[in-house]
């Protein structure tokens, strides 16, 4: 089946079986390898992407269900202000160990900050508990999310002053 997909602001045409999970379309048809396969069953969050801004596990979303929704992946999230701040905070906090989970973590965190500018610990856990980090970098993930959130207030305050 032919499908037209909007990914990170660009339109792509793919020809795949209708039950192909979006994860594999991204990875193998579009060569966007940042979205990761961890479990194939919505249990680990490594494959988290945004559909119209909402975080979803792309391993359980068949391509036929994507429709006209805009897909954002880790390759595109850096061009949003929240994504850029998160990536910066991730590096400043030196979150990464093996790094395999981190694309999914950043995508979940970006969706969280989009709806909650200043999440507390409980908000962070609620939003992030579906994202496994087998290396257990959780403390730093929490810190990086808070730092990215603070950054926003920092820049907002700076803008106000200016």
């Amino acid at each position, binding site marked *: 089946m032919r499908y037209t997909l909007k990914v990170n602001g660009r339109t792509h045409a793919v020809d*795949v*079986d209708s*039950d*192909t*999970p979006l994860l*594999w379309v991204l990875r*193998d*048809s579009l*060569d*966007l*390898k*940042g*979205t*990761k*396969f*961890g*479990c*194939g*069953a919505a*249990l*680990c969050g*490594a494959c988290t992407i945004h559909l119209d801004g909402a975080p979803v596990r792309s391993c359980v979303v068949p391509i036929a269900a994507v429709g006209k929704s805009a897909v954002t*992946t*880790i*390759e595109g999230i*850096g061009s949003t202000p929240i994504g850029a701040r*998160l*990536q910066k905070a*991730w*590096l400043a906090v*030196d*979150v*990464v*160990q*093996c*790094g*395999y*989970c*981190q*694309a999914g973590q*950043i995508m979940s965190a970006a969706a969280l900050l989009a709806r909650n500018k200043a999440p507390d610990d409980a908000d*962070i*856990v609620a939003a*992030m*508990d579906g*994202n*496994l*980090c*087998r*290396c*257990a*970098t*959780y*403390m*730093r*993930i*929490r810190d990086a999310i808070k730092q990215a959130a603070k950054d926003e207030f920092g820049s907002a305050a700076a803008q106000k002053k200016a």
Partner: protein
Amino acid sequence: MMQDRISPALSVPSAAPPTGLASRRDVLKASAAAGGLLLSFSLPGLAKAAAMAQAPEGGTALTAYVRIAPDDTVTILSKNPEIGQGIKTMLPMLIAEELDVDWSQVRTEQAPLDPALYERQFAGGSMATPLNWEPMRKVGAAARQMLVAAARRGWDVPESECETASGRVRHLPSGRSLSYGALAAQAATLPVPDLDSVKLKDPRDFKIIGHSIPGVDSPLVVKGHPLFGIDTVVPGMLYAVFQKCPVFGGKVVDANLDVIRKLPGVRHAFVVKGGTALNGLLPGVAIVADSWWRAEKARGKLAVTWDEGATRQQSSAGFAREAAELGKKAPAHRLRDDGNVAAALKGAARVVEAAYAYPFLAHAALEPMNCTAHVRGDKVEIWAPTQNPEPGRTLVAQTLGLDEKNITVHMTRCGGGFGRRLANDYMVEAAWVAKVAGAPVKLVWNRTDDLQHDFYRPAGWHFLKGGLDAEGRLVAWQQHFVSFGENGNFASSAGLASDAYPAGRVPNLSYGASLMQLGVPTGPLRAPGDNALAFVFQSFIDELAHAAGKDPLKFQLELLGQSELLPGRGAGFDTGRARAVLEKVREVSGWGTRSLPARTGLGVAFYYSHLGYFAEVVEASAAADGQVTVHKVWAVGDIGSQIINPTAALNMVQGGILDGLGAALNQKITIEKGRVVEANFDGFAPLRMSQAAPVEVHFLTTNHPPTGLGEPPLPPSIPALCNALFAATGRRIRELPIDSALLKT
């Protein structure tokens, strides 16, 4: 008498092809004179520098480790695979320090697999630091010396008048200076100095070592760049799945290949006869398709008739029953007998008896096993996330009947290792399937493959008696370990060393073992052996402390006694270092000085593992329904004189401790009818953020050579948690994972 074998941290499962791992241990030579570990090494990579210099890429190669470009960019190669331990940052830091360049000039690069140049290239056993601390600095110092020699020749001045800093050589009297970039071509023509002759910096002058350097690949990781094995793309590549018998060692009798071959996208479907070695190429059915999803979907229609073999009789429940029976008898093998345990137990004022047990565990690295292979005639090219590429290449060569020299292995970044990728079963599968398919093939396991075809941390059962005298001193210890193995040899990672602590500190002590036959493959999991034994030893010592009516931490210190070097791994077990980390963790955790809420307790444990000393205190509580919450962990480590990269070290300690807590709280692998029951992260659950307590970390700096961190923080975390739960509830956890029903009010 049974062979007394600690399962070595790095051993790939038994019956492995020659791995060269034994030689790794030969490299380590303990030196009592130096009060620690001395390393003898050779670095063939330096001798070949001239040859390397002929074919520079991105600059002039001074040695196999260092290239310098005219723009002063310094490229440093990291010889070992990166699995998240931060090696691609840390090894180049050691070289850069002595090369005397600024870190901002440095680019790091994964070295190719070439043991002729780089010697053993592996990630395991927390060995990278002890093995490379001195050699890699000497590599840097040698290159620096070549650059200085090039400069002073040009200026015709004595070496003593030259100094280096920030990638430049300066002639002090004249003030002239040249950058390394300008000197590299000339330096590369000079001989590499004898490593024994190069001078190393005084640690007080370190500018890179001891400073936090963020992971070199992290800027690419957070943007989703394709760094991992699973991201490999080779032109014309096909995708494969490989279905093995769910029962370990089972063979294919028949499969509906005709049906499979007709499914959309399927290019090949075939039976792989395979062998019997559980760490080699096993029997199974390969499906190769034009996309991984189509191969995986086709597997859903696969019907295989298996000859399941003898292992189908085995189960976790059966092992537990057999262990309980064996535990009633005398051990089949005696490992150690000090004093007279029977008499001492008889004469003891108080005897404590307990049985401990822990389950099989999987590694569950987040990146599933995968490998991409391309076989062309007698040549093979492999892209693999592996901790241990060299034995993998040997395995591929032997299985495909090819010469190792014709096999190239590219080491990709690994999405976690934890010991799983020391075995290369998935590598040989990919190579075989690619050969039959006649095209480049990427083999990707799904999570069920990963959890059901692992090399498991072996389960174990311990039957213990401890005797206390009237003053509450530990005078007798009897331990019968029911484990797995054959012919008097423990299965991989299923051993108990005769010198394991508290041996040497209890006058009457016996260790014995009985072995059950096992058809399930076992292997090293982060802190192999210790990740299970620490739970048993350090929990039972805590039981005895409570029985003696003593503060557990004080009891531990009393038992450790005076500072002394007891037999043990590396230079031996230094009771003084163990005391020091315990005393420090008492201080930083506020042990004995804080009042805690109801059903909340502190637990303490320490362990000497992989040359590192860690003492940990856990604060945990149990709700009325038994639900466990870990509130905080304090950890104190002693890994010698230098923390090379503090940010990475902290991350590693926190990760290791939380890994241990996750195992204790959540994890077990269950064998039923010779196969694994758990099939995904719902059945086998790594720790999640909601369970991740803050971990406060302190290091003691001691006058010992630096050692590794991948493993030592993990073992004490489990008994510290269980001991905390005893303090909180009065219930003793003697079996893992923790059953919260036992903690209900």
